[in-house]
């Protein structure tokens, strides 16, 4: 018998093992839900799958009575737009400041302590100040994402820029490059795939901040809906929404990973 550490499951076993815990979770949910519904047929905490199916049908495929919109899609569009703008601006700032502080020692000396300090401030605790600065409109929602993830992105990309082998920076200089050209033709292109990795890492937090922002002041969005219906414990809506968010998060992560592999083969080839 091989030692456990040397034993590799086959293809089929890998799939089966991977699906098993999900199947178990499902069974546990079913049992718990049945037990609660037995005791109180109106119980809202662990709705039956049929109730969730109804809720999905209602939210996704029937126009809302109030606004005539298909709520799930309207919410998804609103949230994804905010997420895209927030993460996009953060990525841009992370890129610019990360490159500048990672490449230029003087910029690093001036900005790094501030960024470190800011990265430690819990954004949820300073919401009132954020409101004054950015109002309560779309900007504010997006701003919470930006404030939440930009310091991380900057610090990560600064690190990555500093990790570019000194040999390559020297090489650029021997080829006649000035500082600007070193940034443009060495640091920036090499940071791009690392930016994608950093964005992938920060997406979890971005979702968190998005949901928090939508819980604060909004009229649509996935987080808005969840916090709104939480008022009457509509788990039949919340659970499918959570699943949907999880799926979206997974899809975005997957697409970013794919894009990076396709666009930056040299990065993935050498790692």
């Amino acid at each position, binding site marked *: 018998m091989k030692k456990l550490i040397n034993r590799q499951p086959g293809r089929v076993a890998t799939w089966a093992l991977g699906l098993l815990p999900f199947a178990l979770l499902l069974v546990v949910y079913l049992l718990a839900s049945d037990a609660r519904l037995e005791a109180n047929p109106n119980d809202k905490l662990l709705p039956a799958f049929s109730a969730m199916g109804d809720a999905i049908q209602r939210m996704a495929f029937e126009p809302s009575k109030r606004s005539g919109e298909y709520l799930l899609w309207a919410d998804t569009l609103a949230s994804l737009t905010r997420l895209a703008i927030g993460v996009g601006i953060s990525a841009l700032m992370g890129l610019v400041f990360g490159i500048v502080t990672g490449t230029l020692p003087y910029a690093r000396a001036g900005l790094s302590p501030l960024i470190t300090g800011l990265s430690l401030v819990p954004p949820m605790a300073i919401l009132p100040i954020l*409101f004054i600065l950015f109002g309560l409109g779309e900007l504010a929602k997006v701003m919470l994402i930006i404030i939440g993830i930009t310091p991380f992105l900057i610090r990560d990309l600064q690190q990555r820029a500093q990790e570019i082998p000194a040999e390559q920076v020297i090489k650029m200089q021997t080829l006649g490059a000035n500082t600007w050209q070193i940034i443009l033709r060495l640091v920036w292109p090499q940071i791009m795939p690392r930016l994608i990795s950093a964005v992938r890492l920060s997406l979890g937090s971005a979702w968190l901040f998005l949901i928090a922002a939508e819980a604060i*002041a*909004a009229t649509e969005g996935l987080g808005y809906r969840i916090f709104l219906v939480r008022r009457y414990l509509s788990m039949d809506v919340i659970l499918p929404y959570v699943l949907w968010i999880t799926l979206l998060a997974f899809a975005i992560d997957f697409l970013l990973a794919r894009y990076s592999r396709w666009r930056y083969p040299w990065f993935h080839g050498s790692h």
Partner: protein
Amino acid sequence: QARDSFKVCWSIYVGWLPWDYGAAEGIVDKWADKYDIDIEVVQINDYIESINQYTAGQFDGCTMTNMDALTIPAAGGVDSTALIVGDFSNGNDGIVLKDADKLEAIKGRRVNLVELSVSHYLLARALDSVGLSERDITVVNTADADLVSAFNTPDVTALATWNPLLGTIKESPEANLVFDSSKIPGEIIDLMVVNTDTLKANPALGKALTGAWYEIMGHLNDSGFRQHLANVAATDLDGLRMQLDATRLFDKAEDAVTFTNSPALKDTMQKVAEFSFDHGLLGEGAPDAGFVGVETPAGVYGNNGNVKLRFDPTYMTMAAEGEL
């Protein structure tokens, strides 16, 4: 089934603050001992979460308004009894506008409030009173903790909320109070709600809670009591007085019994049920506003076969008659 240990929860609102005094001063324990049971009084910071926890069965009783009692536990199938009718809001909830001192000016504005809460109900009633409807405005759901700072931003020109947030907002020179709950007295009612089955099996719980509550009410004008409440609410004595003044607190059990027995309660619950139904709060399965029956001493509103919220003056009556 009979038990001897219970948990009730409360959240920070002027009408419920006395529960903390009762717990801290041992009044609740004293009454629990008297009926040979244990009662744990738990503070929950987030109001909605406290009701959700109660609805999910984590607590035997919880403080909430009449509207939330109908739309959360009752609509969720948890048969609930309003054991103690503590007060009704008599100015504690209000609508504030910037740059206008007439409610009519709200037309076309975005109104920030906690959607589907009593503020929303207040707004609906207010709009009604000037011949407007919800279609004339846009409701922006805003978390209660953030309403005060939201008011400081230029984007926000109208909002509806309750105390102490309302009091803080009114301090701002820009704020004009254009409507408050004193114009709809008795419609926003603050309750101690307990699970009906639990109460039936354990009358001792009802007796102990009610007895404790009216003993606490006896301290209403003590300075120690007021100071305690002010501290818990993180305000000062003036702030507390302002909040108490806007509250019709039934410190005498007789008054609460009278209020509960009056036919107006049934009408109020009808309005609340209709509002809730219009906003989908009674659940998608609800065919009409009367889907969830509400039992009041003046009769049952709605579906007799599906009574889930009961206003039961039995224990308050006992208190009024000194039988506890």
